[in-house]
């Protein structure tokens, strides 16, 4: 009897040990990602420093001059564009699901929107390259150009030859990809609004939109903010869809119809071709910067989402 108990105790220790090891592995992986990317970047860090690297627009493998400014700019500008388009649409979708959609259709419609997130990024790329970009280049962008170019300042955004392989197309595709993330988190946050608050507003004669605008949205603002940051993280790290439609050009673009490059696309296109230690190290440095930005954003988003509904 006593030996059985002892054996069971040993087994239990053993099982708790291996499960702990597996859980700890996640921590170990994250730490080693940071350490190994940092170590691989050291050559580039030594050569260019931090501010020197992120402020330099050079990307010249032949003369071994590298800077992150162009790719960082491409990454941020496409992400910003995607957010501008995705946030209102996602809020609309969340409002539709929580307040307007007939109950029987709710699960079907929610799943349909979430399927947008399940479609792999390379499929967005294929569709973007062969179907959507030609559509943009032939029909939509010329129309935009015609209507906006005469306007001073704003017109600058619509100069150049609209080919469809550009920042605007990329921004639209990214916005489609991040919409389901924002919509589903915001939908869950909307559902956390206490029914008493909504009913008191209805009770004093508020219309449905006034309840949404003055009760539900203010109550959900931390959740909305958190979801937008998560979506931003996704857009920053999106690779394949962008690789197909952005054109991979290292330059600071001033028009929506210019090609550009993001950190992820640069990695995807140049990593296996990088000859020379400094070239490869600079690519690792880009990856490290991307990882750092992403980690920071997600940590902020987690704090906001944890405070949600309090």
């Amino acid at each position, binding site marked *: 009897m006593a030996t059985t108990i002892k054996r069971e*105790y040993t087994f*239990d220790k053993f*099982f*708790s040990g*291996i*499960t*702990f090891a*597996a*859980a*700890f*592995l*996640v*921590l170990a*992986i994250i730490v080693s*990602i940071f350490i*190994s*990317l940092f*170590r*691989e970047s050291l050559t580039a860090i030594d050569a260019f420093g931090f501010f020197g690297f992120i402020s330099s627009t050079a990307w010249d493998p032949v003369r071994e001059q590298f800077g992150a400014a162009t790719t960082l700019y491409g990454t941020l500008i496409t992400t910003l564009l995607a957010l501008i388009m995705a946030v*209102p*649409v996602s*809020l*609309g*979708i969340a*409002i*539709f699901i929580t307040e307007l959609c007939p109950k029987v259709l709710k699960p079907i419609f929610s*799943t*349909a*929107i979430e*399927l*947008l997130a*399940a*479609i*792999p990024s*390379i*499929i967005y*790329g*294929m*569709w973007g*390259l*062969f179907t959507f970009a030609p559509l943009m280049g032939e029909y939509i962008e010329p129309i935009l150009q015609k209507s906006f170019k005469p306007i001073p300042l704003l017109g600058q955004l619509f100069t150049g030859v609209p080919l469809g392989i550009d920042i605007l197309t990329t921004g639209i595709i990214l916005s*489609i990809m991040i919409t389901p993330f924002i919509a589903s988190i915001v939908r869950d946050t909307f559902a956390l609004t206490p029914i008493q608050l909504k009913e008191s507003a209805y009770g004093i004669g508020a*219309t449905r*939109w006034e309840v*949404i*605008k003055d009760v539900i949205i203010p109550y959900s603002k931390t959740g909305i903010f958190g979801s937008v940051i*998560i979506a931003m993280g996704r857009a920053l*790290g*999106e*690779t*394949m869809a962008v690789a197909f439609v952005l054109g991979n050009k290292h330059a600071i673009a001033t028009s929506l119809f210019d090609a550009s490059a993001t950190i*992820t696309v640069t*990695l995807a296109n140049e*990593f*296996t071709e990088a000859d020379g230690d400094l070239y490869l190290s600079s690519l*690792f440095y880009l990856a490290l910067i*991307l*990882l750092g930005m992403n*980690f920071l954003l997600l*940590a902020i988003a987690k704090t906001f989402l944890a405070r949600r509904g309090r």
Partner: protein
Amino acid sequence: MNHINEISKRKAINFFALSLAGAAAGLGLFWLIFILADVLRHGVAYITPALFLNEAAPPGLDGGGLKHAFIGQLLITLFAVLIGIPLGILGGTWLAEYGRHHSIGRLISTLSDIMISVPSIVIGTFVYAIFVKPIGHFSGFAGALALAIIMIPVVLRTTEDMMGLVPWEIREAAFALGAPYYKVILQVVYRGAATGIFTGILLAIARIAGETGPLLFTSFNNMFLTTNMNEPMPSLTVTIYQYAMGPYDDWHEMAWAASFVITLFILSLTILGRLIIRWKYKN
């Protein structure tokens, strides 16, 4: 009179705003249908037996297939699943059971959530640095490792959540019979959480099946059939990228066909996972 005007104005605004929300919902559906219909339209036409039975033909020649890429994709995914799923389930078990009150458990849980959103291409560069570079060549194993790393936090968090849904009283009932904790977990908690964990696995596989970025510089690519995981290995996704960017029409056709197959696979898994969740947790 003014009062009535005010009311009808508010009603008009209400109608307008809610119509916009409806339009946004319509836009979401529009994109989904547009993309899926496009993949279907292009893909179905090029699904031929040769696609699955033949290996790549020399560039420009007819009659090639993607057999090598299908087999490579299966092998890489299989190995990723073999590494990622046990580790994810075990780790999730610790977080939900032994470590549920430890602060390090909460830290790991939060970090996993963050890691789920780390750009997958960064995982690719990491595996390149720790695996490909030291051994000196690309390999199927490296690709599987990258996918496994992407998979672990997903499986781990689902396992943790699903085991947390099993009522604590059920564990106490088993404890009261004198069962040690590991037996309670293996025979009681796992049984209660099995459907949920299974769904998590389906969704994790769906997630890695479409990954391209992390494979570009780990398993790389290969135009030939290989089952040696220690060599560069073709995958469907990397092949789609290469073929789509290539100059030949038949490459584009095969890329579409492969896109169709992979989309069908991933969407079926995702929908299946959702149906299981609804069927299990609704009642």
